[in-house]
């Protein structure tokens, strides 16, 4: 709290980005974790909550007659434009937010103070919800070809890998150690996914330290062992996900890529996904396009094209599809790397798994996938998301791109995912929120050093508790679809308004099919529950039924009310065509998204018994008390 000099400022305006409507007037509060804005001018109390960790940038704009503008950009694409009466107040809020949004010390992150009043046992059970060993077992590992080894238990092989890794049985300790010396940061080839049907595997590593001519026998043996672990194929692919030019440039620094002549029976291939800096700039451009006020269609499409964003999304998707096809159709194993093997490699491997295995399209499976390919394998969330005050050049939307690829798949295959878009957005929010320990730090070792598992909570059980609202009502079950073969022609990639303009509710469809179907589904479930309950009672009822039957009319009428979400609110204002020539649909009421966000990030769910969440997982989230004074 030492950063908060002004906890409350009155007479603050919140400007609406898209309309010329009168700005809201209210009070701004700073708490230890959130900026809260309460609109006093509205008839209904409207609150806007912004988590400090979500703040990407705070800008003080030049003084206007109305006051001192403060522009806040959030990592979840929320943009808030406040105008504060007194410049002094504005400055104090500004400096407080700068410090609060990017703490210097890890222990100042929200997760270390977040206290959902959960018992120690439950907290620990929460961390055990995802067990990667179980996933390897699911793939049939250990088997004749693959083993789980604790070769890295003291981080001797690689300090950014987890203690346990999966390597070919044929690769002995010497091979592993030798190979690790020949790979950037010791990130040796390890198994990411084994396609049980044909023994083809997806493995991942970092670039080799090959320079212009260096070789390493152990590394060559390692690749041979991987290839031979798939006896069905005479060759394996080695995929470098970088543009060729970048890879060549790395040779001058003693790194580079595999020389096909030195490795037996490999087919080497470049897939040009750009690096983190290109991606960061691309997203910045996309942000600017999304924030343009009343752009013409041409402005928007040109901006979208110039940002290159969808081109990058397509590149990642193309790579994932290539991997999945190699494994499924060509029955060949694939070894994937980029430079360090923790950004593009993570994107591509996780996407390929998602395409190949329906398990990863379930709630549980998706959590496993993120734990496995991103968290355990050392995607540097802390740096990429800018959790702490650090090098801005390390920040990059690598994980956002993965989440978007999943969303693009959902558009093409609406019935194949157990979860819906909101689940993706929720995970995306929490990658930045630092409310849970999962995404803190950069690798497993660092999380151990930070005592994440002792001091913080895991996100996954909290998500499972809210499973009902994240469910995809169109999901046709685990067995309905196996491998997915998405169309990757450019037109199949759509701009994701729900992510990048998520808080501009006026742009979204005014009636929500998802909500409607979810309510249909829960009605149906309730009716079925009631029906079976009644059936159970039936034999015990002697006399006439009327007393029991009277619960029916209520239910009958309930089944006719799923239009709860039919928004009456868009009637509020017509698009202001007369004033500025373009129409903008918008709403008076605080957006649902805001509302949900607020609930998710600020209020405690009080999971009395987490086991509920682990089991059938149908329990509804229970509202706790707000934590903030």
């Amino acid at each position, binding site marked *: 709290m030492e950063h908060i000099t002004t906890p409350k400022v009155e007479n603050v305006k919140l400007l609406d980005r*898209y309309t010329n409507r009168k700005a809201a007037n209210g009070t701004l509060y700073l708490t230890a974790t959130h900026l809260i804005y309460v609109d006093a001018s509205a008839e209904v109390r409207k609150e806007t909550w912004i988590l400090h960790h979500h703040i990407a940038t705070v800008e003080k704009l030049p003084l206007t007659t109305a006051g001192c503008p403060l522009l806040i950009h959030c990592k979840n694409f929320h943009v808030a434009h406040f105008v504060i009466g007194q410049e002094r107040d504005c400055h104090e809020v500004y400096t407080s937010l700068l410090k609060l949004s990017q703490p210097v010390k890890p222990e100042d992150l929200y997760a270390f103070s977040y206290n959902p009043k959960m018992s120690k046992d439950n907290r620990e059970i929460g961390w055990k919800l995802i067990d990667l060993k179980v996933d390897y077992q699911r793939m049939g590992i250990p088997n004749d070809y693959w083993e789980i080894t604790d070769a890295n238990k003291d981080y001797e092989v690689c300090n950014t890998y987890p203690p346990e890794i999966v390597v070919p049985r044929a690769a002995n300790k010497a091979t592993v150690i030798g190979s690790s010396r020949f790979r950037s940061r010791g990130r040796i080839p390890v198994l990411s996914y084994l396609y049980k049907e044909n023994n083809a595997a997806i493995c991942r590593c970092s670039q080799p330290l090959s320079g212009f001519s260096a070789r390493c026998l152990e590394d060559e043996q390692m690749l041979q062992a991987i290839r031979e672990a798939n006896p069905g194929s005479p060759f394996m692919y080695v995929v470098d996900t970088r543009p060729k030019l970048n890879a060549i440039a790395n040779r001058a620094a003693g790194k580079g890529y595999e020389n096909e002549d030195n490795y037996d029976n490999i087919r080497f291939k470049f897939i040009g996904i750009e690096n983190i800096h290109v991606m960061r700039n691309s997203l910045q451009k996309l942000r600017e396009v*999304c924030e343009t006020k009343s*752009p*013409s*269609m*041409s402005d*928007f*499409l*040109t901006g979208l*094209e110039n940002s290159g964003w*969808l*081109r990058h999304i*397509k590149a990642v998707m193309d790579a994932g599809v290539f991997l999945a096809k190699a494994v499924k159709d060509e029955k060949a194993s694939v070894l994937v790397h980029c430079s360090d093997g923790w950004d593009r490699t993570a994107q591509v491997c996780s996407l390929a798994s998602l395409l190949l295995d329906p398990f990863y399209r379930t709630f549980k499976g998706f959590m496993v996938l993120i734990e496995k390919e991103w968290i355990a394998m050392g995607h540097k969330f802390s740096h990429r998301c800018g959790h702490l005050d650090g090098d801005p050049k390390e920040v990059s939307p690598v994980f956002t791109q993965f989440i978007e690829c999943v969303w693009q798949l959902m558009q*093409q*295959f*609406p*019935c194949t995912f157990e979860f819906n878009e909101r689940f993706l957005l929720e995970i995306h929010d929490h990658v930045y929120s630092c409310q849970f320990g999962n995404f803190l730090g950069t690798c497993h070792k660092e999380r151990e050093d930070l005592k994440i598992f002792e001091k913080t909570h895991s996100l996954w059980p909290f998500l499972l508790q809210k499973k009902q609202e994240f469910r995809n*009502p*169109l999901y*046709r079950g685990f067995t309905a679809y196996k491998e997915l073969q998405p*169309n990757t*022609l*450019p*037109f*199949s*990639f*759509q*701009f994701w*308004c729900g992510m990048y303009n998520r808080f*501009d509710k*006026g*742009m*979204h*469809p*005014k*009636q929500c*099919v998802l909500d*409607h*179907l979810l309510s*249909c*589904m829960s*009605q*149906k479930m309730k009716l079925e529950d009631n029906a079976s309950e009644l059936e159970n009672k039936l034999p015990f009822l002697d006399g006439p039924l009327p007393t029991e039957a009277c619960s029916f009319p209520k239910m009958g009428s309930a*089944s006719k009310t*799923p*239009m709860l979400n*039919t928004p*009456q609110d*868009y*009637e509020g204002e*017509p*698009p202001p*065509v*007369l004033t500025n*020539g*373009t*129409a*903008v*649909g*918008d709403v008076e009421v605080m957006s649902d998204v805001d509302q949900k966000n607020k609930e998710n990030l600020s209020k405690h769910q009080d999971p009395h018994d987490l086991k509920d969440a682990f089991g059938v997982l149908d329990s509804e989230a229970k509202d706790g008390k707000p934590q903030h004074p």
Partner: protein
Amino acid sequence: MEFAELIKTATVESVLLSGAGLPPVRGTLCITSHHLLLSSRPGGDGAPGTVELWLLIRNVDAVEKRLAGSSGTITLRCKDLKVLQLEIPGMEECLNVASSIEALSSVDSVMMMYPFFYRPQDLRLEAGWHLFPLEQYYQQIATQTSQWRLSGVNRDFAACPTYPPAVIVPAAVDDEALRKAARFRQGGRFPVLSYYHQKNGTVMLRSSQPLTGPNRKRCREDELLLGTVLDEGERGFIIDTRSAQAAKQARMTGGGTEPKSSYPRWKRLHRPLERGRPLQESFIKLVDACNDTSLTMDRWLSRLESCRWLSHVKAALSTACLAAQCLDREEACVLVHGAEGTDTTLLVTALAQLILDPGCRTLAGFQGLLEREWIEQAGHPFHLRCARSAYSHARLKQEAPLFLLFLDCVWQLGRQFPFSLEFGERLLLTLFDNAYASSYGTFLGNNEKERCLCKVKESTHSLWAWLNQPEEKRKYLNPLYSRNALVIWPSVEPQSIQLWQGLFFRWIRSSKYLDEAWAEIQRLVENDDTSVEESAGNRRSQSLSDTAAQTENER
């Protein structure tokens, strides 16, 4: 003219048909006066039974032939954007087939069109033609106000050849004044009532441009007509769908727009909407880009931008919102016109009604809207505008996809308000198909006068009669529909407007997974009243005959 003269080869054996996502089929190709048929030999090639292609030749937009050795390939690009390939053994046969299809598809006479020959057994000729009489629409208005009357001034199409015999006009203006006003408007399209907004009694009128010309001519009757629409002290809006510049330029060719001095109580707003050749070219460019599978992401986005189709969608929706806003929020009367008043004018008046009036959002209401604002009452020249689609190599004459643009905008509304339209995408696709090539007479001709001359209503079947049959109708309904009495204000931000993939990629991408999702939605929603569904079990079993109905349609 005899069709037989145009058919050089009536049948060819062993033709390989491919395209449109279907597995290639070999069979016998037959050319009839109106159809291209392909039947696979029963029992042959392992596939039992007969696979048939029933292609209305009118649907063919372009015929391309490529000869290689002794055989040739004909590519048929259809008006519904489907592309088919026929591999024909024998060079001469190939050339004959190609020229026969070309000749048959170019027959331009309305009376020679298939609807005049199509006689389905289960439909009556007269059914569907008089479902939406203007009298009925007028009666609704008459219960609210006495300021409007039904005029027979155009009984013999004398005042305006593109208006129907009956029109709704201000009660205070007599037929003589209407005749004079008609002479002051291009093509005689004097201001008539298009929509009465029950909520506040304001009205939307439509017309063509006034013939002010270079000498700034005036017409007292026209001024009087527009004057009587406004009550004492009221102001109205004229939405001109051309730019101020273009409207001014039109004076040189005898047209123009309402000058402030002569119409002091009407405020003019210019909202330029594309039409004519630029719009047709936009359509062609878009379809071209959609069919180019070699594009990179950047090239695709750049071509999507440069074809400007989505800009046209945005502009049409924005202008319709403006009209709706004037009526609903400003509580002011509106007159919409461009130049002829048969294209962009109708786009705006029809869309504005869909936005404002829940009655237009039902399946029947929408058909009524189409009759009032596009077909019977409005005289959109379908025959000219939809003569050719996006593939034709023929020199463009008067083709322009205004109706498609309208359907696209309706689709956007449906996407933004998924519960508010009673009908779904399938209806919009069917309307698009039928506007360009149809077995039914509904979209024939350019206006009511032409349809009367050709006896369309006596000699052809109505599309509405066919699609209002219960088992047919079901396919067009939106399972999520729930009547919404409110105005549906769409967002016209670029982020809210999407390319209509269901139309432009209908034959390019597989829709399997999306269809499954749709079926799933249907299942979920219908589960809400399971009992109803069960009692409709009979209906279900009947749906086996759907395929028969389908072929009937193709014919």
